[in-house]
């Protein structure tokens, strides 16, 4: 069927809940209301309030409760309404979620998924636009996943629910309804820890994830019209990161541009540049370059576009990289 990301995610949840009675949804307004973005639409009607649980407005409580449920043997999928509201629950994530397996030597684990929309470009209120994925990537024990298409969204969410490790599943709000794609009706997994070459090219490598993928693809189209063939790599899983895929590309192209929606300093782009330095320095024709957000609080809608990365900015970055 043709589906947008919202429908693909909804189908993934629906089918996993049908398949596995241990899967339980928790969140604010996920029940009758179907979630503010409608990701859980219809699940309450199908599976009832026992499995689609509207919780009190308490992110730490919700995440902590999910940890207890998961340790007891369930597979909770908790929805945090926006990434900007996850921080009251950050203590649970950093102090328990990522380390439970280690501190009990595998006796207790927390195989759960925390889903949350994130990112700019949707003309939202304050606190609804940030990209703070790097905060989670630095926590040992967490898998951090970001889909960029409906097909991947379904397969990655299914793989995340089945994962034995806790997953932070970040959904780019800007991509929720931006495109429809053929999404298979059956259950399938898109493997975690695997990046994907979404466009092949020989002149330079663009590494990106989430909502920056369509932006990078548009920029690559522009570059193609000027005879620059860009390879675009979608990381998909940010932690643990699949560096093999982008290192192979770097060895081919010798030029790398990392596109990151988040602020520049200490973002994932910096880590990627360091990894390339460690493993492929002699393959480089130019320093690894970055197109990123700025180290500022993301502006409100009237001036959001100063911050938001356009295909034109990425294209400009590509040209600079080629001219080095």
């Amino acid at each position, binding site marked *: 069927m043709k589906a947008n990301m919202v429908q693909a995610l909804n189908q993934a949840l629906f089918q996993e809940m049908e398949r596995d009675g241990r899967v339980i949804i928790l969140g604010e307004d996920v029940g009758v209301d179907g979630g503010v973005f409608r990701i859980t639409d219809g699940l309450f009607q199908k599976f009832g309030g026992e499995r689609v649980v509207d919780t009190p407005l308490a992110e730490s409580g919700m995440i902590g409760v999910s940890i207890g449920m998961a*340790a007891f043997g369930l597979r909770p999928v908790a929805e945090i309404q926006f990434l900007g509201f996850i921080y009251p629950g950050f203590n649970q994530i950093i102090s328990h979620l990522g380390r439970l397996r280690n501190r009990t030597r595998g006796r207790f684990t927390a195989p759960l998924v925390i889903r949350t929309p994130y990112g700019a470009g949707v003309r939202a209120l304050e606190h609804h636009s940030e990209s703070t994925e790097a905060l989670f990537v630095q926590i040992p024990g967490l898998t951090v996943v970001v889909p960029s298409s409906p097909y991947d969204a379904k397969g990655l969410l299914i793989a995340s629910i089945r994962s034995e490790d806790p997953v932070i599943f970040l959904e780019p709000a800007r991509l929720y309804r931006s495109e429809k794609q053929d999404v298979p009706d059956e259950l399938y997994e898109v493997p975690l820890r695997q990046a994907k070459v979404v466009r092949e090219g020989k002149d330079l490598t663009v590494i990106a994830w989430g909502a920056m993928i369509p932006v990078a693809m548009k920029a690559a189209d522009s570059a193609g019209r000027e005879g620059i063939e860009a390879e675009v790599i979608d990381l998909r899983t940010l932690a643990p990161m699949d560096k093999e895929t982008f290192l192979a590309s770097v060895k081919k192209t010798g030029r790398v541009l990392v596109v990151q929606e988040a602020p520049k300093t200490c973002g994932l782009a910096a880590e990627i540049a360091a990894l390339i330095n460690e493993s492929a320095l002699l393959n480089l024709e130019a320093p690894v370059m970055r197109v990123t957000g700025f180290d500022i609080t993301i502006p409100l809608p009237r001036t959001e576009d100063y911050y938001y990365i356009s295909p034109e900015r990425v294209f400009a970055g590509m040209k600079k990289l080629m001219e080095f």
Partner: protein
Amino acid sequence: MLLEKFDPLKNEILQILDPGGAAVKDLEPAILADDLKKIYALMILTRTADQKALNLQRQGRMGTFAPSRGHEACQIGAVFGVRKDDWVFPYFRDLGLYLTLGYPLSAFYYYWMGNEAGLRSPDDLNIFPLAIPVASQIPHSVGAAMAAQYLKKKIAVVVTFGDGATSEGDFHEGLNFAGVFRTPNVFVCYNNQWAISTPRSRQTASKTIAQKAGAYGFPGIAVDGNDVLAVYAAASEALERARSGGGPTLIEAVTYRMGFHTTSDDATKYRSEAEVKEWEQKDPIRRFRTYLSNKGLLDETFEKLIQAKAEEDVEKAVTEAESLPPASPADVFAFTFKEIPVQLKEERAELEAFLKEERK
């Protein structure tokens, strides 16, 4: 029903044994003589093991440690009625609780000596690893209780914490969830008057901690936390309520932290000797000993036997914990993920190569 009889809003507190060891006859819980002796033996073992840990710490053989002296009645009373399929979420001052549930003392020591492996509960014990971030274990216990509810398991889930924890958001969020979903939880607060140097009066302006349960829509009861019969009686009732679908209960066990917060603390800086002396008079072990003697369940021979057995067990546990070989470098990488990622394999190899080079 004790929960109905003792109203925290009226400042009523359940006490069955007074500090002199005299019992209120009609409140005495039905406990077999053998179990009474077991409780006493656990109290002695807890105090002996606790003192040993302190000594070891002072000798540099144990890491920073949170001593339990004075908490024996709460820690043992809270879980003596726990069954094998119940779950328990302890906090960092819970030696008596661990021993009551049958956790190996050697593993407990091993953890406090600085080895994660000591936190791995034996497979047949549903004891979550003790929580260090204050109150953060409370939502976990509620989640486990919700899962039990969903899976239709008629069990109880016990969680313990101190008076300081009641100021944390996770206390509120956890108890609030419990009230909303009517979970099978037993919340046990060891109100020991001090959170490091912060007195109970700085944690809350409410008269009791037990009364906070009312705001979450379930009962709370204050008990004398140095009276093991009172703690046991209240916990038994709460456990049964939980298992039979009656919902959660908050128990405030009023006690006193006789020792330091941890071995890194010096309590003489912030509390008076007079206060400590006053609480010494309310010692949980002494009053229970008197009670047992009056009942004819304890004589000098038996007392000596219990003490000797405790010392023997403790020595054995120390030897065992100290003789465990140090973990390998690979061990610290092995449990971060179910399957070790490429990146971690490389980091592990880096450490191993470095150590090998260094040893040359």
